[in-house]
C-alpha cells in the first residue's frame, strides 16, 4: 500500500502539469505504446480468447439453424452440413398455424407500447424529481431506489391475484400495465435531467410566460431525446427479455411472448416424444435478430445508458 500513497503524492504533483487532452488519449493510448512487445501479445491473446468464448455459442447457433435433423445429430457441430435454413424457417413460421409470428408480434407489442408509455411516465417523474422541490420528493425517490431490492416474486404473485380479481389475467393488459411503472427508468431519467436541463433555461421560459406543461413538452422532452432514447431502449430490452411476469400472468398461448413460446417448445421434447430441437434453435436465432438490430442501431444510446445507470 505504501506504493499507492507514494504514487498519489506524485500524482498530485504532476497534476499541476496541464492535463493531457481526452481526445488525444483516445486516438493514441500512450500506455499501450510504452508496453513491451511480448506483453502486448499476451494482452491481445487474452482478449482474442475471451472474444472467441463470447462468440462461440452464437456461431454454433447459426450453424445449427442451417441443418436438418440428421445433420444436427450426426454431423460435426462446428461446421456446416447441407443447407436447410429455409426449410427450418418455414417450419418455424408454419408450426401450429404460425403461432411463432403471433408470439413475435406480442413481444413487440408488450415491449414497444409498454416501454413507450413507461418512458414517458419516467421522463415526467425524473424531471419532477430533479427540477422541483416539493414536499415528499425525498420519499418518492426513496421508493424508486428501495424498489431495486424487491424480489420479483414478491410483486408478481400478488399482482397475479389482483389482476385475476379484475379479470385481467391472460390479457395483454396484464403485461402492459406493469411495464408502465419502471423505477429504474425513473432513476435514469432523473440522472439525465440533472445532466441536460439547466435551471436557468427553465427560469427564462417561465419569464417568457410559458406554462409548466408547455415547458415540459416543448423544451424538456426535446432536450431529453438522447436520455429518453436510452431509457426506452433499456426498458424495451428488459421487457423483451422478461420471463417470470409473462409466465405468471399469461396462460393461453395466443398471448405468449417469444421467450415463453420458446420455453414451451423446449419442454415439448420430453413430454410428447417429438423432436423439436431444430425448431427451438431456429426460433432462438430468430428471436435474437430484432434485439441485435436494435442494439446496433442504437448503440450510441445504450453504451451511455449501461454505464450511467450503473455508476449511480
Amino acid at each position: 500500500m505504501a506504493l499507492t500513497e507514494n504514487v498519489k503524492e506524485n500524482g498530485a504533483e504532476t497534476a499541476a502539469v496541464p492535463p493531457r487532452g481526452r481526445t488525444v488519449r483516445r486516438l493514441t493510448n500512450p500506455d499501450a505504446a510504452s508496453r513491451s512487445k511480448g506483453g502486448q501479445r499476451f494482452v491481445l491473446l487474452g482478449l482474442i480468447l475471451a472474444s472467441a468464448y463470447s462468440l462461440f455459442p452464437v456461431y454454433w447457433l447459426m450453424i445449427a439453424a442451417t441443418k436438418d435433423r440428421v445433420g444436427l445429430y450426426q454431423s460435426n457441430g462446428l461446421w456446416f452440413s447441407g443447407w436447410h435454413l429455409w426449410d427450418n424457417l418455414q417450419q418455424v413460421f408454419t408450426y401450429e398455424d404460425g403461432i411463432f409470428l403471433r408470439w413475435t408480434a406480442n413481444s413487440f407489442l408488450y415491449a414497444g407500447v409498454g416501454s413507450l408509455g413507461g418512458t414517458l411516465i419516467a421522463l415526467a417523474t425524473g424531471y419532477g424529481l430533479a427540477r422541483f422541490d416539493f414536499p415528499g420528493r425525498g420519499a418518492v425517490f426513496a421508493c424508486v431506489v428501495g424498489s431495486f431490492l424487491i424480489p420479483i416474486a414478491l410483486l408478481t404473485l400478488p399482482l397475479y391475484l389482483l389482476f385475476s380479481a379484475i379479470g385481467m389475467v391472460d390479457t395483454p393488459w396484464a403485461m402492459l400495465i406493469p411495464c408502465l411503472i419502471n423505477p429504474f427508468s425513473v432513476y435514469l431519467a432523473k440522472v439525465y435531467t440533472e445532466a441536460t436541463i439547466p435551471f436557468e433555461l427553465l427560469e427564462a421560459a417561465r419569464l417568457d410566460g410559458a406554462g409548466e406543461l408547455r415547458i415540459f413538452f416543448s423544451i424538456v422532452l426535446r432536450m431529453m431525446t438522447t436520455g429518453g432514447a436510452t431509457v426506452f431502449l433499456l426498458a424495451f430490452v428488459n421487457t423483451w427479455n422478461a420471463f417470470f411476469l409473462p409466465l405468471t400472468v399469461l396462460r393461453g398461448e395466443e398471448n405468449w411472448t417469444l421467450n415463453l413460446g420458446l420455453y414451451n417448445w423446449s419442454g415439448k421434447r420430453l413430454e410428447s416424444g417429438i423432436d423439436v430441437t431444430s425448431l427451438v434453435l431456429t426460433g432462438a436465432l430468430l428471436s435474437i435478430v430484432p434485439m441485435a438490430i436494435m442494439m446496433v442501431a442504437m448503440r450510441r444510446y445504450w453504451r451511455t445508458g449501461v454505464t450511467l445507470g450503473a455508476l449511480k
Partner: protein
Amino acid sequence: MIRSQRWKGAAFTVPFQLGFVFLYLLPIGYAVYQSLFLEKSSGLGLGGATTEFVGLDNYGKGLTDSAFMTSILRVVLFACVQIPFMLLISLLLALLLDAVTAKAAGRFRILLLVPYMIPGVVAALVWINLYSPAVGPLTPLGELFGFDWNFFSPSMVWPAIGNLLTWHGIGYNMVIIYAALQGVPRELFEAARLDGASELRIALSIKIPFVRGALVLTALLSIIQMLQIFNEPALFRNVTPETVSDSFTPIMIIYNQAFNAANYHYAAALSVLLALILGLASFLFYRLTSREAD
C-alpha cells in the same frame, strides 16, 4: 421557488406515484396480508375450504422448511463461487482492454458484449443445446481430450449453469469496470512508471483500488439477481428434471407453492421472507465492503 410551482412540479410525478401505489405498494401489502392466513379444508374435506387467520405461522413454517432453507443455502453457496469468478474475469478483461489502443479496445468491447445482447432465456436454451450429449459439440470435444463429462449430472449441473451465467454476465460487468477504469487519472500511471513500478504492480496497486466502487456495485447487483435465479434452472429442468428438482431455487419453490400446490398463503410468506433475506444480504455486503474502505 414559488409555492404553486412546487405543486406543479409534484404533479409531474403523480402518474408514477399512482402506478407505484397500485403496482408496488398494494401488491406488497396484499402479499403480507395474505401471508397471515391459511386455507384449511374442513374435517372431511367435503365442506369446502375455509380461510383462517394464523398469524405468523406461515413464517415459522418457512423458516423451518428444509426444502426452502436448502434452496437458499444452495443459491448462496453458488453465488459465493460464481460471482467472484465472474467478476475476476470481468476485471481482468477490463484491465486488458485498458492496455490496448483505444481503437482495439472499442472493437473488442463490442465482441465481448455480444452475450449481453442475447435474452437470458435464449442464452440458456443455446447453452443447454451446447451441453446436450445428443446435439452439442461439447461432449465430443470432451471425448477428444479424454473427458467423459455429462453436464446434466448432479455434480455438473451447477458448473454448467455457472458457465452460462458467467458467459452472459462478463461483458456487462466488464463495461462497468472499464468505464470506472477510464476515470483514473493517467498521470498516476506515468508517475508510477517513473518510480519504476511494473505494469502488473500498477494494475494491482493503482487500477484495482480505483475501480473498487464499480466492483462492489457489480457484486451487489449480481447478488440481488442470483438470490432470485429462476429462468436458467427452470429451462434446465425442461431437459433434466431428475437433476434439477422443482425446489432447486427459492423462487422455483415459491412459484410451485403458488401455482402447482395452490398454497398461495404459504407462497406469499416465502416471498416476504426472501425479500427480507435479500435486503439483509445487500445490507451486510454493503456494510462489509464499505468498512474495508476506511
